[in-house]
């Protein structure tokens, strides 16, 4: 009974999207919805794994870190791959610069030039960096690194201290550069069958460019560059 009441809850509010809305599957009327498998997750269990942070700051923990502190942590844990100023070593990602290049022929997408939300920086460093030792930093260290990377991009001043109150107030330069609604289909090819165009010219060929690793025999370990 409990389950049926529950399954009637979704439909009305949900069918606002672009997709056809399907009602929740009710396999058999009696058993629908509730099996009671597994254990109830306790607050402490959830707190241990619930690490996501949203742009409005929801999920940010206690703690804080300054730009100066961040510089030291960055030198220890990050600069070997991302460069002391976030310029990126080799093919490791660049974390700073590129502002004003998004409409260029060779745009440079970085935290400063591209990322819409500062919260994402905290969230991502915390969950995935440093690359070789994810989820090894303290909350204070992550706040400090966030402040430092924002400062490298001239988004916050040198005296900025990141914490759960200040971070959500940071407005990223490219926040309004995104359209969060998929405009596709954005092409309108026609299913023409005969005499669809006059002439055909080949503008580029991959032949003889020497970019393709071997496609036979053992794995090609060589660096074709």
């Amino acid at each position, binding site marked *: 009974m409990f389950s049926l009441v529950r399954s009637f809850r979704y439909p009305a509010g949900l069918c606002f999207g672009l997709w056809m809305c399907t009602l929740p599957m009710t396999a058999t009327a009696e058993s629908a919805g509730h099996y009671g498998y597994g254990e109830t*997750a306790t607050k402490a269990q959830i707190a241990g794994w619930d690490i996501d942070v949203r742009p409005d700051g929801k999920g940010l923990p206690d703690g804080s870190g300054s730009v100066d502190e961040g510089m030291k942590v960055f030198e220890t844990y990050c600069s070997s791959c991302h460069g002391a100023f976030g310029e990126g070593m080799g093919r490791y990602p660049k974390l700073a610069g590129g502002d004003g290049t998004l409409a260029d022929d060779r745009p440079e997408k970085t935290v400063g030039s*591209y990322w819409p*939300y500062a919260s994402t920086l905290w969230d991502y460093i915390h969950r995935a960096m440093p690359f070789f030792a994810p989820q090894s930093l303290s909350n204070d260290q992550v706040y400090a690194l966030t402040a430092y990377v924002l400062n490298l991009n001239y988004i916050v001043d040198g005296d900025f201290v990141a914490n759960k109150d200040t971070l959500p107030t940071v407005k990223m330069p490219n926040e309004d550069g995104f359209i969060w609604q*998929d405009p596709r289909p954005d092409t309108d090819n026609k299913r023409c069958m005969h*005499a669809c165009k006059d002439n055909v010219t080949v503008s580029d060929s991959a032949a003889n460019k020497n970019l393709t690793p071997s496609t036979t025999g053992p794995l090609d370990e060589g660096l074709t560059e």
Partner: protein
Amino acid sequence: MVGSAFSGFAKRASAAETQYPPGIPAWTRSLGAGVVADPYGMPSPFEKGVIRRNVPWLTAEKKSSVSFSPLQHLKGIITPNGLFFERHHAGRPEIDPQQHRLMIHGLVERPIILSMEDLQRFPSVSQIHFIECPANGGMEWRGAQMNSLQFLHGMVSCAQWTGVRLSTLMQEVGIRPEGKWVLAEGADGAAMTRSIPLEKVMDDVIVAYAQNGEALRPEQGYPVRLVVPGWEGNTNVKWLRRLEVGDKPWMQREETSKYTDLMPDGTARGFTWIMDAKSVITSPCPEMPLKGKGIYQIEGLAWSGRGRVKAVDISMDGGRNWQKAQLQEPVISKALTRFALEWNWDGKPALLQSRVVDETGYVQPTLAQLKAVRGTSSIYHKNAIQTWQLNADGSVDNVQLG
């Protein structure tokens, strides 16, 4: 899979004379290996070149990288488990299923933690769906680079996935009325996350634990992954450990910094989840040249993230004239579909293309049409018509038309 085995024909005249009629082959005059010689069977050693391959110069390192399926050797709609393309952000974790847990919490009535045993008690579904990385073909926006089907289009694979509908699990925990989005998170070192709107969650998403009838392969998310039919590969979170219901998207790194499409005016499109219809001729292709004029079966694969493949057309003259190809059963929504057309090649150079139409009526665009709208910096969702230049000697090159 039909790979290097055929190369044996070349030696016909000399060394292996006794293997051919009227000779009697050695393997007919002897006994082979007994059962369980290989308790877990492997392909014939003659197929050892049929493997996933990577592009060493593409990424800084192999732990955050991709490998490509050998589409040129695949002869069905199902990708064998060992050949399914890989995309890891922090390497492939080795997870003990006994110790792995899936937590479902957030705006729900009853947050739960499921063991893999718990999960497999729920009613299950088995569905065939492709998964494609939206960066498949993304190296080619500015020009033709890869002279290989595998490296051009090999970040798509297809399997039969068995698992529990995510809607079943949502019903189990009871979504609160404010719940509109679900965050999926992996248990790997990247703790990969994506926000998925509830309409999709309740539609056809599967929490999958099996792939082509056996447990997921570690590189495909063992012991449990999300399968989000028709949506970009990245949303199909592997090594799934957590599902959180919320009222807004989380704007994670993988849906802001990555997997957003930069347009020529400097604005970017976000939440472009669906994989639009695409097709490619898999034979001939650069890896599968023709051997002199004569009758050939032109074969290929087509798929659409919006539903079924309705038709595929083939052109031999760079898109001037088209002929309808035959679709081969089964034709399944959001799955790879095979097509074929018999062709008598006169030995002259030709420009081969395939063009898919899906059940929504969408017609696969040309590269020029895509570039006219999106420029050359959007990386993802390049589903343009592929042109193969067939040369007089039977070799095939990847080309782009002006």
